[in-house]
C-alpha cells in the first residue's frame, strides 16, 4: 500500500504540491488528471524519489516503510517503478542492457521475448532512448517496467503520442502489468480475482484512452498543486471535458 499524507513539495524554490493526501491499496489503480503544469509529473517524481523535488512537509509510506527521504534506488528495490514522460538518452547503453539492468540482471529474463510483447525487438541494439520517437519512448518504458516488474507502477502519460495500432498494445500491456486483464473464470469469482491482485498503479492521462483497456478504481484531479478526487475516473473525464478543470475541481470538492 502507498500512503501519502499531507505532502508538500518544492521545486526550484517554488511550492508545486500542496497538502497532498493519497492512498493506493494493493490491487488498486488510480488515474491522475490535471491541466498542463499542475504538478502531475512532479507528484510521480516525488514518489520515485527525485531529490530536486524537495519534500517540505508530510510523508510517504510504502509497504509500511517511511520512504519520504529514501534514495531512488532503494525505492526501486522496495518495488516502485516508473514509466517516464521524458526519459533521458543514455549514450552507449544498449536497450538490451537496460532491460537486463531493470531485471536486476536475473538470468530468467529474456530481453527478446519481453521486447516482442511490446513490438520492440528491433530497438534492443539501439542506445536507450537515442532518437526514439514519442511513441517508441512509451514502448521502451513499458519494456523496462516489464523487466522490472515493480509492485507500484507510476505511468506518466503512457498513451500520449502513441499511434492507433500501438495504443491497444500499450493499453493491454499496462493492464497486464497491473494484473487487470484477468477476468472471472469458472474457478474464480470476480471478487477472488480482485482480491488476488497485488499490483498498484498510478496513471497520468489527459485523454483517458487508457480507460478503454483497464478499469481503474479511482480518479484524481490535480489542480494548482492540490489534489481532489472522485470515485469514477470516467465521470471525472466527462466533467473535465464538459466544464473544464476548474469547475470540475469545484464540484468534486463540494461533493466531498
Amino acid at each position: 500500500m502507498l500512503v501519502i499524507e499531507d505532502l508538500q513539495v518544492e521545486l526550484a524554490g517554488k511550492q508545486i504540491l500542496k497538502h497532498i493526501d493519497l492512498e493506493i491499496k494493493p490491487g488498486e489503480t488510480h488515474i491522475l488528471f490535471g491541466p498542463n503544469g499542475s504538478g502531475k509529473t512532479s507528484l510521480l517524481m516525488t514518489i520515485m524519489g527525485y531529490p530536486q523535488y524537495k519534500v517540505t512537509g508530510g510523508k510517504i509510506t510504502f509497504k509500511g516503510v517511511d520512504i519520504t527521504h529514501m534514495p531512488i534506488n532503494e525505492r526501486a528495490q522496495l518495488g516502485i517503478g516508473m514509466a517516464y514522460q521524458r526519459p533521458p538518452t543514455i549514450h552507449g547503453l544498449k536497450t538490451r542492457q537496460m532491460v537486463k539492468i531493470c531485471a536486476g540482471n536475473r538470468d530468467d529474463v529474456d530481453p527478446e521475448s519481453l521486447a516482442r510483447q511490446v513490438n520492440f525487438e528491433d530497438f534492443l541494439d539501439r542506445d536507450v532512448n537515442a532518437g526514439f520517437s514519442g511513441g517508441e519512448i512509451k514502448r521502451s518504458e513499458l519494456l523496462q517496467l516489464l523487466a522490472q516488474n515493480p509492485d507500484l507502477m507510476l505511468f506518466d502519460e503512457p498513451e500520449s503520442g502513441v499511434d492507433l495500432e500501438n495504443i491497444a498494445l500499450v493499453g493491454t500491456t499496462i493492464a497486464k502489468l497491473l494484473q487487470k486483464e484477468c477476468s472471472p473464470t469458472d474457478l474464480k469469482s470476480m471478487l477472488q480475482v480482485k482480491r488476488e491482485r497485488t499490483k498498484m498503479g498510478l496513471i497520468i492521462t489527459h485523454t483517458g484512452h487508457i480507460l478503454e483497456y483497464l478499469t481503474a478504481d479511482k480518479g484524481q484531479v490535480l489542480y494548482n498543486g492540490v489534489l481532489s478526487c472522485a470515485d469514477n475516473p470516467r465521470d471525472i473525464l466527462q466533467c473535465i471535458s464538459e466544464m473544464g478543470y476548474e469547475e470540475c475541481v469545484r464540484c468534486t470538492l463540494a461533493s466531498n
Partner: protein
Amino acid sequence: MYTREQLKERALKAKDKPAAIGPDLDLSRYDKAPVEHRYIDHDELLSLPPLEKERLVMAGIDITEKERGGTYIQKDTAVVHCDVKQDGIEVIPIKKALEKYDWIWDYYWKLVAVDTDKYTAAAELDLHDGYVIRALPGAKSVYPIQACLYMDKNNLQQNVHNIIIAEEDSELHIITGCSTSPHMKRGAHLGVSEFFVKKNAKLSFTMIHNWAEDMDIRPRSVAQVEEGGLFLNNYICMKPVRSLQMYPTTHLVGENAVARFYSIIVGSPGSEYDVGGRIYLKKPGARAEIVARTISNGGKIVARGHLIGEVPDIKAHLECKGLILNGGIIHAIPELEGHTDGVEMSHEAAVGKIAQEEIAYLMSRGLSEDDAVATIVRGFLSVDIPGLPPQLQAEIDRAVEESDKDVM
C-alpha cells in the same frame, strides 16, 4: 631518395628542436644505449612470468598467438620475437629491412620529416628498431597482426621507427600495444610511424597504450591514403603517463579515400595528454571522421582535431566529447578548415559532467549510484567502430572494461 648520411645530417641539425606543441623533454636525462635481450620463441612466450604476461595482455597482445596472423615484440631496444603465419603478409624488424631491402627506401622518412623535432631526429640518430608490416597486393589478413613495444629497463629512451604498408587491394589489421614492465618507473618512448594505404586497400590500426606514471611519450605518425583506400586508426589510453603528446596526421591523396580516427583517453591525476588527429582531404570524394572520447579523472587532457578540406565534394566530421569526473582539465580544440566551395565539414564538441538525470534514471531501475555512474561512463566510452574485426573490438571493449576500476 635521401642517403642515410643526408638524413643523419638533417636529424643532427634538429636534435635540439622542440616540438611545435606539448611539454618539452630534456632527452639528455635518458639512457639510449642498446639493451641486450635474447630472442624468445613461441613456447617461451607462453611461459613468461605472470606479471609480465599480464602487462602484454593488457596492451592487447594475445600471447597464445592463436587469433593473430603474426607477432612482433620488441623489448627495450631488441627484437625478442618476430614471426608471421600468413602468406602475403610480412613482418620485418626495420633495421633488418634497411640492411636487406631496397624497397624500404621508398618509404623510410617519406611521410614524416626527419627534422620535424628533436624526437624524430633522435629516432634517426639512435634508431633502436621497429617493425615493418606489409600486406602484399590483394592479401587479406585473416587474423590481426600484433606488435608490442615493451619497455623494461628503467630510464631508457626507446627510439622506434615503424612502417606499415597496405599494398593495392589488400586488407591489413594491426593491433599494437605499448607497455612497460611492472618495475619500470621512468622512461621515454619516441615512436615514428609511417602508414601507406594504397589503392583500394584497407588498413586498421588499433593502438593500446599502457604506460607507467613517469613515462614521457612522443609518437610521430603520418599516413597517406590513395584512391579508394580506407585507414581506420584507433587509439586507447586508459593508464597514467607523465606526458604524452601526439598529433597523427593523415593525407587523403586519392579520390574517395577515407580515414576514420577513434580515440578513447582517460586522464589520471598527474598525467598530461595532448592528443589529436589531423586529416587533409585532398581529392574529391574523400571522407574523414574523427571521434574522441576523453575522461578526466584529475589529469589534463588537450583533445585536438583538425580537418582540412582542400577540394570540393569532400565530407568530414569531428566529434569530441569530454567528461570531467574527478577534477582535472579537458581542453577541446576542434578545428575545421575549408579551402574551397563545396566542402561539407562539421564538428560537435562537448565537455561536461554526467547528467544527474541519467544517474537518477538508472537508479530508478534499481542500480546504486556508483553502478549508475559506472554504467554511464562505460556507455560514454563505448564507440562502435564499423569495419573493425571482432577480435580487435573485443580488445577495445576489454580495455574499457578494465579501466572502469581505475576510473571509479
